[in-house]
């Protein structure tokens, strides 16, 4: 019982906390990606806005898809949604819960990217320098024959010669950056307020009992899939081992008929102790395994382990009451 509890705890903590960990790592990756990315404003009136909006929008989309890709729950959710009904009824609430959990986790890294770009300000400056009214600032370079738009579009570029001797560029820079940071902090505040409100009012809106059920069954699906994969891996190993041993023995039978019946033959079956037989669970042929895997998808078993549980319990009850047969199903 103790061991089982430990294993269950491990699985439970493992599944959700691993997803959370991956989510946070992806957010950190997105920050690192931004700092290592060499932002290169074209400083041309036609391209500034396009480039900035591109850099603000495309990486979050990429990070979102990537977040969905590496999330385990995406696979579990798709499996549960697409499977045939089989022996087990489908519960759309569980699918919805998994979907919303997955989307929430996948949205963190894109939001971090957008906030970092806004707080840094380079993108806003590149996009909106042409929309600033130059009359607000002194030191506008009048000596060139370029038009106003072209001059304003060169503001994001530090090396440009026309701004060399004036503080005009820096002034515009600060002005736009200030706006950008204000927008960034407001978005952050809004998100936090939304999150807090959602947390506080959720028990009023949702039925607590059914949400507990949904959480349980979505975790169950995740654990079940993991255990199935593990069982398949162990089964494959046992199958391979037995297959190889059998192959050697068949060769022996083909080649040398004059050997005395070796004690090996008898030994083999005894050697395949109960523990090893249990590992194969009675699946010893390719067709059986194929049927098992096909049935796992087309007709998932009922969520009812009474038979298995009763069997072990009956055994225990027999041990308690020595003279009496308590197990009445036989």
């Amino acid at each position, binding site marked *: 019982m103790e*061991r089982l509890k430990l*294993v269950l705890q*491990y699985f439970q903590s493992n599944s959700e906390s691993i997803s959370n960990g991956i989510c946070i790592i992806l957010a950190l990756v997105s920050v690192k990606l931004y700092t290592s990315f*060499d932002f*290169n*404003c*074209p400083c041309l009136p036609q*391209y500034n806005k396009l*480039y900035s909006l591109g*850099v603000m929008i*495309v990486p979050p*989309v*990429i990070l979102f*898809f*990537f977040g*969905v*890709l590496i999330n385990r729950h*995406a696979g579990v959710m*798709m499996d549960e949604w*697409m*499977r045939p009904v089989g022996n087990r009824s489908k519960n759309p609430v569980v699918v919805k819960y998994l979907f919303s959990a997955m989307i929430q986790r996948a949205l963190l890294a894109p939001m971090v990217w957008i906030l970092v770009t806004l707080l840094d300000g380079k993108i806003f400056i590149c996009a909106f320098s042409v929309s600033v009214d130059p009359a607000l600032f002194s030191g506008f370079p009048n000596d060139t024959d370029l038009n106003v738009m072209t001059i304003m579009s060169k503001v994001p*570029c530090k*090396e*440009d010669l026309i701004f060399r001797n004036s503080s005009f560029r820096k002034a515009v820079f600060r002005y736009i950056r200030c706006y950008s940071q204000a927008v960034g902090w407001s978005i952050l505040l809004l998100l936090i307020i939304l999150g807090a409100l959602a947390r506080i009012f959720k028990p009023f809106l949702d039925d607590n009992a059914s949400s507990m059920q949904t959480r349980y069954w979505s975790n169950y699906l995740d654990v079940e899939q993991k255990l199935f994969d593990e069982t*398949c*891996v*162990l089964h*494959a190993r046992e*199958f*391979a*081992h*037995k297959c*190889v041993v*059998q*192959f*050697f023995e068949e*060769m*022996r039978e083909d*080649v*040398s008929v004059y*050997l005395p019946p*070796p004690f*090996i033959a008898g030994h083999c*079956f005894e050697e*395949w102790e*109960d*523990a090893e*037989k*249990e590992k194969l669970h*009675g699946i*010893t*042929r390719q067709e059986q*395994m194929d049927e098992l*895997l*096909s049935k*796992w998808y087309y007709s998932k078993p009922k969520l009812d382990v009474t038979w298995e549980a009763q*069997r072990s319990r009956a*055994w225990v009850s*027999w041990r308690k009451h020595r003279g009496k047969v308590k197990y009445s199903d*036989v």
Partner: protein
Amino acid sequence: MDKFRMMFQFLQSNQESFMNGICGIMALASAQMYSAFEFNCPCMPEYNYTYAIGLLIIPPIWFFLLGFVLNNNVSVLAEEWRRPIGERRKDPSILRYMFCSVTQRSLIAPAVWVSVTLMDGKSFLCAFSVSLDIDRFGNYSLLRGLSEVEKMKVLAKIPCKDLFEHQEIRIAASRYVKCISQACGWIFLLMMTFTAFLIRAIRPCFTQAAFLKTKYWSHYVDIERKMFDETCKEHAKSFAKICIQQYFENMSGEMQSFHNQRSSDSDSDEDDEDIRRSDEDKLLGIRAQDDMNKVLWNWHTCKPALALRKNYADVHENEKVNGEANGGFNGFVNGHTQDVKKKEWAVYYSKV
């Protein structure tokens, strides 16, 4: 339960995590190689494009092939493809699955190289500087009155800091081209991620049952190969041990009587017997060179069917049938003490 977990982790960690680790290391290596590599545009109209595009394409091909070389599953795939049918039919979907998984892992390092190259922009600048329109960047009289060939020569020098005098044109042009190059880079990344997302998300809509099957059997093929190698190693060890023992015993009769005298010490004798018996077991009945050669030959030319022996299955079936009467515990009971108890119970039941 703990052993179960540890074993599974060991199996998993050995196969998949190892390959994922190699994949990650190669991706980092490709990024590091790019930053360590000194990009050196020739700044001549005939060679710029070739150099730049070559640098964009050839290292990814090299990384892709390296990924194939470093992946163990490639040899498993090739073996499974080329083996004679024997007693086991071939399933092309398994080959396809293995090929897809090897290819996916090998594509990561090339993708990293291409995206880093595009984000950096030097390659595009080198390749496309001759097609630039200078007037876009301002009113410059640089190219007025020059012939086409001379214009191209001047434009080709743009990527080189020390060869092109007009710094403001150079900076403006390099910004412009870098911006386009980065846009291409982001679009490339978006396409790759979206494709991967579609494959991952949409695949369960089709052929999920077949996918479970191919995943299991391709993993099985890999594990079977490992098990065969392990069994051969164990066999070789036991073969060698017994061969040497027999040689010593044949060489001198005194060794025999020495053994007989020592048999008074029953414990050590039992241990020796156990060790000898386990060595004999490990031989699995193959005791001659020709037999072993036949085993190894047949393993390739005629792989056995995926069906464990009928006798074993029959034994298991019989136990199951009897087990139903006994409460069906046979397959699910560990250890021998329960066996004893089981027998007792069966006796009692028959009395009733």
